């Protein structure tokens, strides 16, 4: 399909071609599904909400529930205050969630609806809550939206109610799959550190089949837990873009010190997570974790010659791409094209510096590569035409480029619309790194087998 992408690169000012990002509300909707018994609410036209739900459904293969204010022509002129109030009333009557998490859309932002004051004047049944986040899509990306809704949780829920902080850690996992969140919780529990993770979509978007449809599955961070996060002695934000802003907000609001780490993909970033827990809580690293790490290193040495010198292009969400870059560098690969659709910095949202972070990684490794935030897949394709690679890592949208250039694609990130299971199994932690290595190795070696002439086909590789 992308056969007509020209090789020559010309600067563009008007059009994005084949986007590598999507809009804030979908991230906010996903984050809100990480609160137990919470219904995300999209304040805007019904179309946005339908798109966001469909897209999440295709990625997770789970029902995704969210309500909408259903704007009509009138609301776009007179504001959506009445729609939101009616919606809040109807949602509590019909679906009875504990929390409604309102996010805005481009439309309600452009009209300028003042959500906090609408919420204040809405009829909210006792014991129930309405929280909100502003998520205009003309800033940032779906990652920013995730971060903003997490910040909304801090704004509305977190409280410092104790004199002294508790020996417990807040973990803000960033925009990861439920399988990843589970793995991070498992590692933290193995370290023996009490933790509060929010948002937490494990058990909510990877729920087991029960023969019943539960509007509100068992999973998700409890409201009381998020409230108690103000009493923790440390917040670990995993990912500059998806988690740092809410962590700093919690620091400001409740004086919980924030430490920003990379998304724990690959050995270095996972080490950093384990070390942060060990240092802060004087915890012993248990044998089980030592063993997992040892196995990972063992496999890295066993297979290093499969990876060394292979050129790779990686695209996707900034935190994930940064960690993947670090990981493939640790395997001796050459990441030459690194691109995210999320803008490098954005107003009123996630603070990060993808371009500087990733460029520094390449410099440390003595490599040069193309690095860009706010790019699109058209540009990535042009880069690859100019400097071909052995492997592409990214979400499903990479398949067009992979086909046009005949390179293998390893699917990591959001969204993955054409394969299953990915949201259940981790890419984080030492086990996740092992899984990623298997995926990358299989892709590379399958290609070697496919391309081998009869006489060159190897049994042992």
């Amino acid at each position, binding site marked *: 399909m992308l056969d007509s992408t020209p090789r020559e690169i010309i600067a563009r000012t*008007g059009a994005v071609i084949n986007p590598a990002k999507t809009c804030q509300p*979908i991230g906010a909707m996903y984050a809100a599904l990480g609160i137990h018994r919470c219904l995300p609410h999209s304040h805007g036209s019904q179309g946005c909400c339908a798109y966001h739900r469909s897209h999440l459904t295709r990625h997770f293969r789970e029902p995704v529930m969210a309500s909408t204010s259903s704007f009509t022509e009138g609301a776009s002129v007179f504001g959506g205050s009445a729609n939101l109030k009616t919606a809040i009333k109807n949602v509590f*009557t019909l679906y009875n969630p504990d929390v409604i998490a309102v996010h805005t859309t481009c439309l309600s932002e452009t009209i300028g609806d003042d959500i906090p004051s609408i919420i204040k004047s809405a009829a909210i049944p006792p014991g129930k809550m309405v929280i909100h986040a502003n998520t205009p899509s003309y800033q940032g990306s779906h990652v920013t939206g995730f971060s903003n809704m997490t910040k909304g949780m801090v704004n509305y829920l977190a409280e410092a109610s104790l004199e002294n902080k508790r020996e417990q850690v807040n973990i803000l996992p960033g925009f990861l799959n439920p399988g990843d969140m589970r793995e991070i919780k498992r590692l933290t529990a193995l370290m023996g550190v009490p933790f509060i993770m929010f948002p937490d979509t494990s058990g909510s978007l990877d729920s087991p089949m029960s023969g019943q449809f539960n*509007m509100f599955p068992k999973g998700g961070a409890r409201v009381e837990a998020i409230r108690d996060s103000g009493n923790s002695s440390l917040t670990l934000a995993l990912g500059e873009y998806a988690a740092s802003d809410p962590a700093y907000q919690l620091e400001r609001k409740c004086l919980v010190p924030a430490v920003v780490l990379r998304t724990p993909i690959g050995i270095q970033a996972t080490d950093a997570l384990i070390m942060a827990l060990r240092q802060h809580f004087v915890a012993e690293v248990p044998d089980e974790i030592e063993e997992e790490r040892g196995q990972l290193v063992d496999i890295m040495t066993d297979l290093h010659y499969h990876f060394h010198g292979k050129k790779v292009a990686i695209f996707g969400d900034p935190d994930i791409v940064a960690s993947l870059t670090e990981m493939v560098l640790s395997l001796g690969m050459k990441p030459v094209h690194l691109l995210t659709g999320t803008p490098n910095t954005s107003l009123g949202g996630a603070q990060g510096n993808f371009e500087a972070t990733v460029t520094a990684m390449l410099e440390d490794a003595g490599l040069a590569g193309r690095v860009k935030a706010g790019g699109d897949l058209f540009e990535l394709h042009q880069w690859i035409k100019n400097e071909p690679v052995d492997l592409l890592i990214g979400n499903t949208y990479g398949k067009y480029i992979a086909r046009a250039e005949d390179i293998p694609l390893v699917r990591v990130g959001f969204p993955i619309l054409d394969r299953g299971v990915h949201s259940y199994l981790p890419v984080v932690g030492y086990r996740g790194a092992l899984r990623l290595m298997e995926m990358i190795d299989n892709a590379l070696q399958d290609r070697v087998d496919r391309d081998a002439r009869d006489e060159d086909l190897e049994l042992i590789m």
Partner: protein
Amino acid sequence: MKTDRGETLLKARTGFIRTKGERMPTQSCEADSVSGSVSQRACVYCGARVVLNPITDAVHLVHGPIGCASYTFDIRGSLSSGAELYRYSFSTDLKEQDIIFGGERKLAAAIDELVQKYHPPLVLVYSTCVAGVIGDDLEAVCRAAAQRHGIAVLPVESSGFAGNKSEGYRVACEVLMRLMEAGNSPLPAMEPGINYLGDYNLAGELWIIGGYLRRMGVKLNAAFTGDSSLKALQTAPAAAFNIVQCAGSMGYLAKRMQERYGIPFFHVSFLGLQDSADSLRLIASATGDEEVMARTEELIAEEAGQAEPFIQAYRDKLSGKKAAVYVGGGFKAISLIKQFRELGVEVVMIGTQTGRKEEYDEIHNLVEDGTVILDDANPAELERFMSRQGADLLVGGVKERPLAYKLGVAFIDHNHDRKHPLSGFEGAVHFAREVYHTVCSPVWKYVKQGG
């Protein structure tokens, strides 16, 4: 009483649900969704995009923030035998400053860049909610661009808040009218053919029907809009008559073409053996050509003869099963009831997102007593009635799939994500096979044991 599972239905919703055989007010439909509902409905842009997207040689440029474009990046399974340009996703990716100062300049620049890069004969510029609210004059920008480049550049006024998906269909039909008007008149002299409206060539469905028409000796001028090009669409006004499959999206265009070009039209459906045969006969007799009619009978005998043994075999496996149907338009719902009957499957629940009153009346006449009929259902309602009616299978779109699976109910996508062509005799066999594969999969056994 209130519970999580929405046992209470909003009073406002009661008119939208009825059970055949019970006394109830007439079906309400074609209204806006209630604020705060988990509606399965989409927007004007979505409707317009669905109809226009299969024009393969057009640049489809979305004027708005990035999301509206991202979600429609090659999601329809419309196939092309020629250009692939329609599968690209183009967006002006409006930013803060564009919202404040207007996005017209950026839009003009985007059109210029894309025209230079791809040399398309046609650029369609879709308006989204935000473009609508900031008041960009798409008409003017497009007109200027059309003059600059000497090609057709047309706005699609599809701001999402201005109605629902049906409104989007209407908007798209207006654009198609303008496209035809813009075509060079006088029309080239050509032998009379027909236009086929409302087939988007999902999974190659148009190619099946096109093949039948060829064998019958009926010339196809233009298909709207599956596998189409600007040039093909512009030959449409010369047609002898129009056949309309998806009435929901294209009924309006058929009426407009009748008014403007005097082209008569009638409805067809290619879902199921019976409807397929009936429709082909209708087309043949409309040509008034004895030879065409004779060839059509041969074709039906041959195709139906090939399909029937398969259908019979699947019917043996499926007979007595119960189906729930929740689809976009009423016309498709009607065809599905008949098609399931061919498979020995009873439809026990049926609903649409945008069905019209006449269609609901026909549905009501077709179904058995006790069948639940709903308009614009939310997931809680779907769940409740699927369980209560004991459905073995749900036919729906992307958002309904996991819902069905969670209930341990089999599922068929009759929408964007369909994987096999479901039209014509061949399609009927695909459909039966798909129903069989999902309903008779061993996986459901484990659900029932575990649950």
